[in-house]
């Protein structure tokens, strides 16, 4: 068997293992190990395992991942979600559908200190759902808004999947964060427009909230200062070259932890829950990283990736066709897989293809950053599509009286806004790259 045949067989085997409920990290470990043994024998593999775990877990740039996860836990326990929602509500709650829009802006704000969509959806759901209910918002609209708004958690930096993408493709984390910022804001505005439209068609589902005085508004806004400060220090520090991403994440983690501590969120079991939560998510991500490492060592030996890229590039397809095919694959995969697994599994294959074709005459770095943002947005959609939209699951857990089917029905307009945004960014990469041009 040639390397390429072997690579393909192993890859198909991997997909089969995934379909049979195998955890993706273990499946990758198994598939990669079998391929590795077939190519080079048992001893090199055993030798490789001597250092693989340490080598993978001690990558300096990867250390931001557990830090951002811990920071997200502190943020969840820090009461900042409440302040964010209050501020949004004070400003725009009196608009048609304003409280739902406030839920979106507070998701975006929370996303600025939390790198995970699930944590954002869960945290904002706990705060916003009861308020929306009290103000007679329809339950299914409320759940859909929070589930969709939760995806802003990783679109707005810091973002764990974006860190992983940066490491796989050897791109600059700071530049990717910056490039994600404007699309994140556009996403939030898009969701607010959707709410506005729904509120006009069905005013009974999204009534106006109370109007606040400017004094109350300023006071409510003032209470969100820790979020602004932490975000400014973390992202500004990374981008300004003052700190490495790890140092910035360290500051963010300790500052958020301090906020959580002063607000009483770490009392009793609070601190332990933060530790457990961070450990659970860290272990999940790094076992996948370890598996992906083994698999990628094997794939590199077979050169499947480069051959696939050569083959696709050699077909001379229209670049847009290639891009939209990749997007379609992500949308399908997103229905059944989680975003991080998708990035780790597919980016090593798709990235060389993207780098090999000419898209709008972009230079290599712009293309790499642009593709990272597009991929991130597309895999994020998987969080709110049936049958396994994780965000919707989380929200259903909080609002057990709303059937998941109803939530999915109201998710559709938000999905449409996602697709419009992604298409726009494919056709106009400058939407995401302009921030880089301004700041460099």
């Amino acid at each position: 068997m040639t390397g390429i045949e072997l690579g393909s067989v192993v890859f198909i085997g991997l997909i089969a293992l995934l379909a049979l409920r195998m955890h993706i990290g273990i499946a990758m470990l198994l598939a990669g190990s079998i391929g590795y043994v077939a190519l080079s024998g048992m001893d090199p593999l055993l030798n490789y395992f001597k250092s693989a775990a340490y080598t993978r877990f001690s990558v300096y740039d990867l250390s931001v991942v557990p830090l951002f996860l811990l920071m997200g836990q502190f943020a969840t326990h820090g009461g900042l979600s409440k302040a964010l929602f209050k501020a949004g509500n004070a400003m725009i709650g009196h608009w048609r559908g304003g409280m739902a829009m406030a839920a979106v802006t507070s998701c975006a704000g929370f996303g600025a200190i939390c790198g995970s969509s699930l944590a954002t959806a869960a945290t904002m759901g706990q705060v916003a759902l009861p308020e929306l209910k009290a103000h007679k918002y329809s339950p299914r609209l409320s759940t859909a808004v929070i589930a969709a708004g939760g995806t802003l958690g990783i679109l707005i930096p810091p973002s764990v999947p974006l860190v992983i993408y940066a490491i796989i493709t050897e791109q600059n984390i700071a530049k990717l964060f910056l490039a994600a910022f404007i699309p994140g804001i556009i996403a939030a505005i898009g969701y607010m427009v959707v709410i506005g439209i729904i509120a006009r068609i069905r005013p009974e589902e999204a009534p106006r909230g109370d109007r606040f005085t400017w004094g109350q508004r300023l006071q409510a806004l003032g209470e969100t200062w820790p979020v602004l400060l932490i975000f400014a220090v973390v992202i500004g520090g990374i981008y300004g070259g003052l700190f490495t991403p790890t140092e910035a994440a360290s500051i963010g983690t300790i500052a958020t932890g301090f906020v959580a501590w002063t607000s009483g969120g770490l009392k009793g079991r609070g601190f332990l829950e933060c530790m457990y939560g961070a450990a659970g998510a860290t272990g999940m991500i790094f076992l996948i990283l370890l598996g992906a490492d083994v698999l990628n060592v094997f794939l590199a030996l077979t050169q499947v990736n480069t051959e696939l890229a050569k083959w696709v590039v050699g077909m001379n397809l229209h670049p847009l066709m290639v891009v939209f095919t990749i997007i379609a694959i992500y949308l399908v995969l997103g229905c059944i897989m989680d975003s991080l697994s998708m990035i780790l599994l597919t980016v090593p294959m798709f990235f060389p293809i993207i780098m090999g074709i000419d898209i709008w005459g972009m230079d290599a770095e712009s293309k790499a950053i642009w593709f990272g943002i597009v991929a991130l947005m597309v895999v994020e959609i998987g969080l709110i599509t049936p049958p396994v939209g994780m965000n919707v699951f989380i929200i259903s857990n909080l609002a057990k009286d709303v059937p998941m089917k109803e939530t999915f029905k109201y998710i559709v307009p938000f999905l449409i806004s996602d697709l419009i945004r992604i298409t726009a960014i494919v056709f106009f990469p400058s939407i995401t790259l302009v921030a880089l041009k301004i700041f460099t």
Partner: protein
Amino acid sequence: MTVAELIVDETSQARGPAGKVIENVCKFFAICGGLVLTAMAIMSIASIVGRSFFSSPIVGDYELVQAMCAVAVSMSLPYTHWVRGHVIVDFFTTHANPKFNAFLDLLANLLLALFSAVITWRLWRGLWELKGSMEASMLLDIPTWWSYAPMVPSFALLCIAAIYAAGADLGKMKS
């Protein structure tokens, strides 16, 4: 992403006294990992402060982060597995016979047990080799095997947790 970061599932597995012990050790490891992570963050901040105000950064902060990160991550692994925090694709098997699914989960757990056992063994060998060759970090001269030392029990614990979970799956198949 997984639910594990949000839901600390206290009832995911029926546990006897052995399970209770494993659970507590997993939790202990998770807390240690979290504390190492916190210490790493504080150390980074101390280094920034030293660098910007006293023009004396902490020597070797880079390699400290690397070592501490490896330790913190490894110590998190058993807990993740204990709360079944790993994501799986259950799309194709949602409507399958629960016993068949328990069988598949059993296989997955056994495979994880096998791999973590192999990795534990190889790490242990690697540790002794590193100790023998006196490999150490560049600036602080920290022996590399020090970071391996907490990793070996972490992977061993992961193996034990996986075997215990496999036992639970076996119970589900029989019931």
